[in-house]
């Protein structure tokens, strides 16, 4: 038995990590079983709807070509939250998946079920045929990707505990830098997270090693034709934000970007009120307010910004709002880390990032 194996066993059996058990687990378990049955029933219903749509759509298309109502969008998708309902560009076609639609060049291929996993892949598309198959990711489709081809997929998260990790969809989506390899995909990819219409999406794109730059531009163009059917207004982040859930506000998404750029480790969130970060062995909460905090003192200039103390907090202005930092609550400290305000280089990086990252969605 190696030392490393002993250490792993000790860490996994660490008594400090026991979770409180549930006094009466059966109501929770029965609820979970009920939800699963409902999901299965909904899936069957959707499959039936898709089958019906497959019959109705050609009829509508036929009608439109013979002078009937134009068949804009799809037979099954509700009106989109984003983009116009204008027809696809010449030589492009529109594809639909549950609650979304997207345009691609007509020669590209589209698959609504490349692999059955959770969270759901709404669709996958590529320059070559997109076969279904895989246990964890769209393995079959990735295997079929030629050296000069492109493949992309849209994943939707059903429920999101940290909505701020999905920034509001910007006016123009970009593919983002190459990263990874992505879990379960096993290849490097471009990954974009965004929120649109109260729904949380992850877009992943993979290019063959010899894919031309023009192909990347086409995938980007295709991504920006994505139309999303919104959730009811009460479930939109705006409503939740107004109801007091700060973590659903655009400001929270902005703070999350700030801590990432400042190379602060994301620890989680403190209820609905703040995001928790860890750097230099100090854990702290960060949040925003539109009002200037009271009793600002002991101010000093940092990255061209006056950073002040406000009681036990730090506060500084950024883009017409105020960013505040507070030592994290006790559960977020340990012998290796302690609750404390960010200081030195960490604070400088936070201040600098708060000035350089533009806030979207306010």
């Amino acid at each position, binding site marked *: 038995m190696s030392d490393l194996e002993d250490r*792993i066993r000790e860490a996994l059996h660490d008594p*400090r990590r026991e979770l409180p058990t549930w006094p009466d687990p059966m109501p929770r378990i029965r609820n979970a079983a009920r939800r699963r049955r409902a999901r299965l029933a909904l899936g069957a219903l959707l499959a039936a709807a898709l089958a019906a749509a497959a019959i109705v759509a050609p009829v509508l298309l036929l009608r439109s070509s013979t002078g009937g109502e134009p068949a804009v969008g799809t037979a099954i998708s509700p009106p989109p939250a984003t983009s116009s309902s204008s027809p696809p560009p010449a030589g492009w076609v529109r594809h639909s998946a549950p609650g979304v639609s997207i345009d691609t060049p007509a020669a590209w291929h589209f698959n609504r079920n490349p692999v059955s996993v959770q969270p759901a892949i709404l669709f996958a598309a590529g320059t070559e045929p997109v076969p279904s198959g895989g246990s964890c990711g769209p393995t079959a489709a990735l295997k079929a990707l030629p050296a000069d081809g492109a493949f992309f997929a849209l994943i939707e998260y059903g429920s999101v505990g940290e909505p701020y990790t999905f920034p509001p969809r910007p006016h123009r989506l970009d593919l983002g830098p190459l990263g990874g390899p992505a879990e379960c995909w096993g290849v490097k990819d471009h990954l974009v997270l965004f929120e649109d219409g109260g729904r949380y999406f992850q877009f992943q794109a993979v290019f063959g090693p010899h894919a031309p730059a023009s192909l990347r531009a086409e995938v980007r163009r295709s991504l920006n034709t994505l139309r999303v059917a919104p959730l009811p207004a009460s479930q939109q982040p705006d409503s939740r934000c107004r109801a007091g859930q700060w973590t659903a506000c655009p400001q929270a998404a902005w703070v999350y970007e700030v801590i990432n750029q400042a190379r602060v480790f994301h620890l989680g969130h403190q209820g609905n009120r703040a995001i928790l970060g860890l750097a230099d062995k100090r854990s702290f909460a960060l949040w925003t307010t539109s009002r200037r905090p009271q009793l600002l003192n002991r101010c000093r200039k940092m990255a061209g910004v006056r950073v002040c103390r406000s009681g036990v907090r730090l506060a500084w202005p950024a883009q017409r709002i105020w960013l505040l930092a507070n030592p994290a609550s006790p559960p977020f400290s340990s*012998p290796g880390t302690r609750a404390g305000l960010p200081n030195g280089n960490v604070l400088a990086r936070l201040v600098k990032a708060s000035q350089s990252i533009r806030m979207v969605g306010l």
Partner: protein
Amino acid sequence: MPSEEEFADFAVAALPRLLRFGLALTGDPDAAEDLVQTALGRSLGAWRLHRIDDPQAFVRKVMVNSYASFYRRRRREIATAELPEAASVADDTRGIDDRDSVWRALMALPPRQRAVIVLRYYEDLSERDIAAVMATSIGTVKSQSARALRRLAGILATTDPDRVSNQRSQT
């Protein structure tokens, strides 16, 4: 014929270990609870249909498969801020630090590698049993395990160079 009461007895008895197993897989207490609840809900459905011989193994399998799906695509780690304050009397700070370092390194592993490690070192399953739980081959389990251990050693070497140099000086 299995009754729901029997399943309830099983759930109550198995819950602490399942929650702990979920926490080791996900690194997040909330996610662990969700995972256990989902797995037990699904298992209850199968139990009612008399499709379960070994409920513990069934729930474990559902948890591993659900976990791999839930977490398969996120590169970032789920928040793992839960570091309870109380330590046992025998613990010295060094021991706690080391277990926390190893825990954090485990959380940095990709989901399937982490699952292999947790099944092997927490559940004490053989490679054959791990392969059955993960619906994969023994060869894949061996390679995932070797990769995970290499990666863990690499992470720990960068986060705890003192320990590495001490070990080297001892050998």
